[in-house]
C-alpha cells in the first residue's frame, strides 16, 4: 500500500504496526486507516514515498487552490489526474513559490527595497530559495523522477573546505584551517584521553574488563592512535606540509603537525561537526541540474493551464455548500469571485493572516501562532573558480563565525568551469534583519569583505555581480519558513492542520518538515486525501 513508509529508510517502523494498518485498509478503507493511525498516535504526515492512491473520481467538482508553490502545484497535479477541476490562484507571474532560481534577467524587488535585475552570465545561477534535497525526502525525489528532472550531487560536507573563526577564543582566532585538521585532531585527542583513562583503570566502574579492551581497540582505530602507546600524533587525513608525490622528492611528502589540544578546546572549533549529521543534512544530498526551479517548471508544464497568474486573493469565504474566493487581477485591477466545492489554501501563514476571511476566531488566533523566519542569501558570481583552482575545494561549505555570513557555499556543479556562482552568506533572525537593511550593493560589499579574509587577494578581485534576497521582505512570503514554538506547535498547529469548513491548509508550514520542499509536497498529499474523502462521502 502506498502510504507505507519505505522499510529500509524507516527501520524503526515496526512491521507489526504496518501489518495492522494494511489490514485496517483491507477491512475499512482509507477512512478506517486514518482513524487507526490516529489511534496509534501516528500521523499520516510521516515521510511518504509516493502520493496517496485516491480511488473514485473528482469529475464535476471544483477545487480552488490558493498559491502555485509546491504544495499548490502538487495538489493541482494530483487532483486533476482524478478528474477534479482545479483552479489555481497565483499572485506572481510564475509558479514555484519559494522554489526559485536567479539567473540572467531575474527580477526581484523586496518590500522597501530597490529593484534587482540579475546580471549573471549565461549558465550561472543561484538557488536563493531551497537549494538542496536530502536523500530521505523521497516525496521531492518522487517528482524529480516523475518529471525527468536531471539531478546531480550536492556536496553538503567537504572536509577540505575551510573553517575560519575570527572570534574563536584563544590562539586559533582568525586562523584559516581545513575542516579535516580540526576533525582529525579533536577526535584523535579525545580518543587518546579516553583510551588512556580506560587503560589506566579509571573507568573500571563503568565498563567490564572485556568491554574495556574492545573500547580501547575502537578508540585507537577511530582516532588513528598508536597501538603501542595510544598516543595521537597526527594522521595523514589531517593533511601534509608537503603532499606525497613522485620519486624521492617530494616522495613520501612531509607530515603535518597536529594543533594543540588546549587551543582547539578553547576555540570551540570542534562544535562545527557532530557524531553524525542531522537527518536532513546527511550525504547523499542532491540538486536539480541547472537550478532548483526545474522542479517548479516540471509542474508548471503539466498544470500551468490551470493557473491564473498575477491574481491576488482579497478574501476567502467558507460557505455551507461551497467556498468563495474573492480575487483581484493585478494587471487590470478587475475584481472577481472564484467558487469551488473545496479550497486548498497554501498561502504562507505570514500572508494569510492579513487576508480577510470568515474563519472562526479560534482559527484566526491559530493563524497567528507561527513565527516566520527572516532569512537572507546572496549569490556572488566570480570570474574565476579560485576555490577549486587554488584551494582544491570542490563544493561544500566554508564555515565562518563572521556575523551575518555563517557560511560560504561553493557550487556543486559546472566543475572546473570558467566562472562560478557561490553563496556568499546565509543568515537568519536578527542578523537577517540587519543585513536586509542594506542595499544589494552594500550586501555584496559586506559579503566580499568577509570572503576576502578567507581567500585574501582573490575574493573581491574575482567578483562579477551579486543577487541577494531577504525572504522576510519578499511580498507573498514575508519570511523564509514558519517557525513553531513548542506551545504553538501544541496548540495552534493542530487547529490549522484540521482546517475549517471547506478550506484546508497545506504547505511546509503544515508539516514537521518545515522549510523543506518535502514538507509542502507531503502536506499537500495529506490534505488532498482528506478533501477527496470529504467530497467522496458527500
Amino acid at each position, binding site marked *: 500500500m502506498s502510504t507505507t513508509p519505505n522499510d529500509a529508510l524507516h527501520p524503526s517502523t515496526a512491521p507489526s504496526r504496518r501489518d495492522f494498518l494494511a489490514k485496517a485498509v483491507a477491512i475499512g478503507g482509507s477512512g478506517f486507516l486514518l482513524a487507526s493511525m490516529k489511534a496509534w498516535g501516528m500521523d499520516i504526515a510521516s515521510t511518504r514515498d509516493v502520493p496517496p492512491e485516491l480511488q473514485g473520481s473528482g469529475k464535476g467538482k471544483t477545487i480552488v487552490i490558493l498559491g502555485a508553490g509546491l504544495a499548490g502545484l502538487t495538489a493541482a497535479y494530483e487532483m486533476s489526474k482524478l478528474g477534479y477541476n482545479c483552479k489555481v490562484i497565483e499572485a506572481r507571474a510564475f509558479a514555484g513559490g519559494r522554489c526559485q532560481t536567479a539567473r540572467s534577467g531575474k527580477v526581484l524587488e523586496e518590500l522597501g527595497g530597490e529593484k534587482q535585475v540579475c546580471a549573471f552570465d549565461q549558465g550561472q545561477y543561484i538557488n536563493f530559495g531551497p537549494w538542496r534535497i536530502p536523500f530521505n525526502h523521497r516525496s521531492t525525489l518522487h517528482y524529480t523522477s516523475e518529471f525527468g528532472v536531471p539531478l546531480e550531487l550536492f556536496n553538503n560536507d567537504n572536509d577540505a573546505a575551510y573553517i575560519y573563526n575570527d572570534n574563536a577564543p584563544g590562539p586559533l582566532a582568525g586562523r584559516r584551517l581545513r575542516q579535516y585538521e580540526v576533525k582529525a585532531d579533536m577526535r584523535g585527542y579525545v580518543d587518546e584521553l579516553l583510551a588512556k583513562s580506560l587503560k589506566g583503570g579509571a573507568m573500571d566502574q563503568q565498563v567490564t574488563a572485556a568491554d574495556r579492551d574492545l573500547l580501547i581497540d575502537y578508540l585507537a582505530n577511530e582516532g588513528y592512535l598508536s597501538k603501542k602507546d595510544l598516543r595521537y600524533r597526527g594522521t595523514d587525513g589531517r593533511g601534509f606540509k608537503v603532499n606525497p608525490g613522485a620519486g624521492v622528492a617530494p616522495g613520501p611528502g612531509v607530515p603535518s603537525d597536529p594543533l594543540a589540544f588546549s587551543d582547539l578546546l578553547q576555540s570551540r572549533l570542534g562544535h*562545527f561537526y557532530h557524531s553524525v549529521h542531522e537527518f536532513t543534512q546527511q550525504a547523499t544530498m542532491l540538486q536539480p541540474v541547472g537550478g532548483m526551479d526545474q522542479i517548479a517548471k516540471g509542474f508548471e508544464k503539466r498544470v500551468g493551464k490551470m493557473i491564473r497568474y498575477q491574481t491576488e486573493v482579497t478574501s476567502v469565504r467558507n460557505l455551507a455548500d461551497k467556498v468563495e474566493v474573492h480575487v483581484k487581477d493585478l494587471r487590470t485591477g478587475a475584481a472577481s469571485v472564484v467558487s469551488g466545492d473545496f479550497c486548498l489554501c497554501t498561502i504562507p501563514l505570514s500572508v494569510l493572516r*492579513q487576508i480577510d476571511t470568515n474563519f472562526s476566531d479560534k482559527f484566526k488566533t491559530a493563524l497567528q501562532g507561527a513565527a516566520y523566519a527572516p532569512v537572507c542569501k546572496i549569490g556572488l558570481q566570480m570570474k574565476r573558480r579560485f576555490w577549486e583552482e587554488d584551494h582544491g575545494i570542490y563544493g561544500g561549505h566554508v564555515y565562518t563565525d563572521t*556575523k551575518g555570513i555563517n557560511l560560504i557555499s561553493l557550487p556543486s556543479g559546472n566543475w572546473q568551469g570558467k566562472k562560478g556562482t557561490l553563496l556568499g552568506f546565509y543568515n537568519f*533572525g*536578527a542578523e537577517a*534583519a540587519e543585513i536586509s537593511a542594506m542595499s544589494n550593493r552594500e550586501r555584496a560589499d559586506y559579503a566580499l569583505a568577509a570572503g576576502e579574509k578567507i581567500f585574501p587577494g582573490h575574493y573581491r578581485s574575482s567578483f562579477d555581480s551579486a543577487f541577494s534576497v531577504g525572504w522576510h521582505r519578499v511580498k507573498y512570503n514575508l519570511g523564509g519558513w514558519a517557525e513553531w514554538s513548542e506551545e504553538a506547535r501544541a496548540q495552534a498547529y493542530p487547529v490549522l492542520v484540521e482546517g475549517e469548513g471547506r478550506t484546508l491548509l497545506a504547505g511546509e508550514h503544515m508539516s514537521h518538515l518545515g522549510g523543506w520542499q518535502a514538507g509542502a509536497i507531503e502536506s499537500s498529499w495529506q490534505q488532498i486525501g482528506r478533501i477527496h474523502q470529504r467530497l467522496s462521502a458527500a
Partner: protein
Amino acid sequence: MHRLVLIAMLAAAGQAAAQAPDGKTLFAKNCAACHQVTGAGIPGAFPALRGNAFVQGDAAAVIATVLKGRGGMPAFGATLDDEKIALALSYVRSAWGNQAGAVDAATVQAVRSGSGAAAVTKPQDKGTIIH
C-alpha cells in the same frame, strides 16, 4: 534621557561620538529593513511604529517584544545587549512624533532576566543551519 542628551552633545562636539552607537543608527541598522526609516512600516507586511499605541505604551511589553520577537519579527535578545536595545527603543518611542518616555538599560536588563529571554550570544555559540 540623560544618556541620549549626552550622546547628542558628543555628536555635536565632533568625531569621537561618530563611533558611539546612537538610537537612530541602531534603529536604521536593526529595524528599518522592515519598519522603514520613516517608522511607517509597509501596510500588509510590517506594522508602523510611528503613532503606534503599543510602542508608546508599557515599556516592559515593548522590551519583551524586542527581546523575544513576535510573528514575523525576530528575537533580538541574543544579538543586541541591554544598552543597545534601550537606545533603539528610546529612539522609537520619541521619533516621528511619538511621545513616550525613554527606556534605560537597567529596565531592559530586568525584563530580560524576568522573561526568560536569551542572553547575548557569543559568535562561537551560534546554532547550526538546518535548511
